[in-house]
């Protein structure tokens, strides 16, 4: 808190008072003044000073392009309300220029922390630098940006490689370390597809009996997942012991293909996929899916925890992996009602 920001706060408070005559604003100015006074007396007091109630956070969301994103947005908004954080939320509708505008407006409003899910990886240096110059810490959520590390405080997001490893481990447990696996890869070249691909392989190298006999892109969609699985079944048929799908939707498509082929998904062909969306839980309840590895969009709680730590000057890691679980059919019926996405 520098002198200028205190002056600003008083000025704005006074202005609003005089304009609106609203009584609720009146305590706001002294509140902003108080920590500054503490700081002058004892700098250490500031550390414990901030709580969720006096945290102001600007969040520049990408948009609402998928169910996953919608769940992500809801989690952040709901958590802000629960904690009493003042959230300034901006939806960029998949446009970088909108996100940049939003970040600039957050800087102008002097928020405490800015959260952003960069829609693309590049082109952020200038605006991130502006935030840094204004002394506002920046947290990347869910997606990374190609900028020097000092421009942001931390990245909160999934470890796709770890998801792949967990899927590989789950597969090994289900198959008893032995079996022929076909793989439905995500969109070629996308980070989740690349990382889930390598993570899975890393995990199963320990099991020489496990072999990936075919790997093909299903583009993360049900239709493609089904089409490719049909072709796998025609080529390899009963040889296939298991399927690893990079997301639940492709697995759901493949389940249909397996059923039409006359085999039992989940029994004749074991299936492990990633994401843990509602549809996957429904499939597990029906016994058609053996395991799904979570890719968690509900980042709200972790995000605000981080934001508070950052504001209070606590050390945080450059990368905070989101908390994610691995789910099996036994838990599915119990968990389905709690799934928000």
């Amino acid at each position, binding site marked *: 808190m520098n002198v200028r920001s205190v002056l600003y706060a008083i000025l704005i408070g006074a202005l609003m008072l005089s304009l609106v005559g609203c009584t609720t604003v009146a305590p706001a100015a002294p509140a902003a003044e108080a920590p500054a006074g503490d700081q002058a007396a004892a700098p250490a007091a500031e550390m414990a000073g901030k709580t969720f109630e006096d945290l102001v956070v600007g969040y520049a969301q990408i948009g609402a392009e998928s*169910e996953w994103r919608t769940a992500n947005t809801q989690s952040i908004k709901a958590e802000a309300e629960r904690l009493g954080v003042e959230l300034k939320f901006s939806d960029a509708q998949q446009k970088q220029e909108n996100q940049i505008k939003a970040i600039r407006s957050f800087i102008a409003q002097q928020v405490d922390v800015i959260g952003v899910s960069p829609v693309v990886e590049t082109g952020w240096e200038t605006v991130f630098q502006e935030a840094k110059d204004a002394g506002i810490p920046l947290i990347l959520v869910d997606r990374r940006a190609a900028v020097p590390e000092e421009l942001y405080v931390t990245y909160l997001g999934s470890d796709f490689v770890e998801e792949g490893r967990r899927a590989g481990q789950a597969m090994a447990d289900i198959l008893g370390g032995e079996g022929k696996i076909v793989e439905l*890869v995500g969109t070629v070249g996308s980070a989740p597809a690349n990382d889930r691909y390598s993570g899975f392989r890393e995990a199963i190298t320990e099991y020489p009996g496990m072999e990936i006999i*075919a790997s*093909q892109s299903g583009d993360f969609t049900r239709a493609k997942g089904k089409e490719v699985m049909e*072709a796998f079944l*025609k080529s390899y048929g009963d040889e296939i012991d298991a399927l690893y799908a990079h997301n639940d939707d492709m697995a759901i498509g493949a389940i249909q293909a397996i059923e039409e082929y006359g085999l039992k998904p989940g029994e004749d062909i074991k299936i492990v996929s990633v994401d843990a969306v509602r549809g996957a839980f429904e499939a597990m309840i029906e016994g058609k899916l053996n395991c799904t590895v979570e890719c968690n969009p509900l980042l709200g709680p972790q995000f605000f925890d981080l934001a508070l730590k950052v504001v209070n000057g606590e050390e945080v890691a450059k990368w905070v992996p989101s908390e994610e679980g691995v789910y099996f059919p036994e838990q599915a019926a119990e968990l389905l009602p709690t799934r928000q996405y």
Partner: protein
Amino acid sequence: MTSQASWWERLRNNSLFWPLVALALVMGFNLLFTPNFFRLEIKDGHLFGSLVDVLNRGAPLMLMAIGLTAVIATAGVDLSVGAVAAICAAVATRLVGNVTDVTATPLPLVILVTLGVAILCGLWNGLLVSRANIQPMVATLVLMVAGRGIAQLITDGQIITVYYPPFFYFGAGYLLGLPFTLFIVAAVFLFAWLITRRTAIGLFVESVGTNASSSYYSGVNEKNIKLVAYVFCSFCAGIAGIIISSNVKSADANNVGLFMELDAILAVVIGGTLMSGGRFSLAGSVLGALLIQSVTTTIYAFGVPPEVVLVVKSLVVLFVVLLYSEPMKVALDKLARRKGVQA
């Protein structure tokens, strides 16, 4: 010599010749390298095998290609077929609803409303092209972009899953041991063929495509011919949308029919219809669509690494399109003549 050359020429000038050659090459490749490709079995009382997959998965593309043939023959193009399929998939699944074994709307009504929406899309395209005189590529680009947005609005940006088994019949059902989609394609093809080849409408379409203004002065209502072509095209795309959503029991507004307009245009071109309009071949377009689907299925069956799939596909396309080029024809002619002399 003359008889052999003319036999060759007659064959080569048949619009179905090159698509058939290309299809034969792809199938020949499969015969050698993917041994299971031609295996057909009876499972659950219906035919089962890669060839059936080609026909079944190729159905939406064949439908779009049939519709696009009419539009391209009028010297137009319709870029919105993929988006129209997405809208119709969204409408159909929304009407069916997501309650197990129950449909929110009677199935015949679902089909009627969905196809009605498709026809509205076609009217929009057709009016922009024929009445507002906007270039077809630009006019249909509007719906190509907006259509996907509309589809997302209808689905609230979510993937809608349906659980009403009778609805699955369109995309995954079997009739007389064959995929039901085949019968849909056959019916649409027959309808289009009868209308264009057994009435004067086909001739009108070709004349509008060759020279719209002289057709107008000869008394052909070129505006209405174009309008009908776009409506028919969207209608076909709408059926494709129903098939796609029915097959995967869901509608994903982001992905239904994505980039299929490009495959469909390619199918029409491979089928021997010129982008500049005029003469067209419905059967050629269907063969073109089958060729594209065969290549896709072959790639999956053969196990081409995913990162080179697009390159392999484009090489096949390049090869096929080269067969059509004028210098290639001349070279082939020479070759044929020389062989004739030697014989």
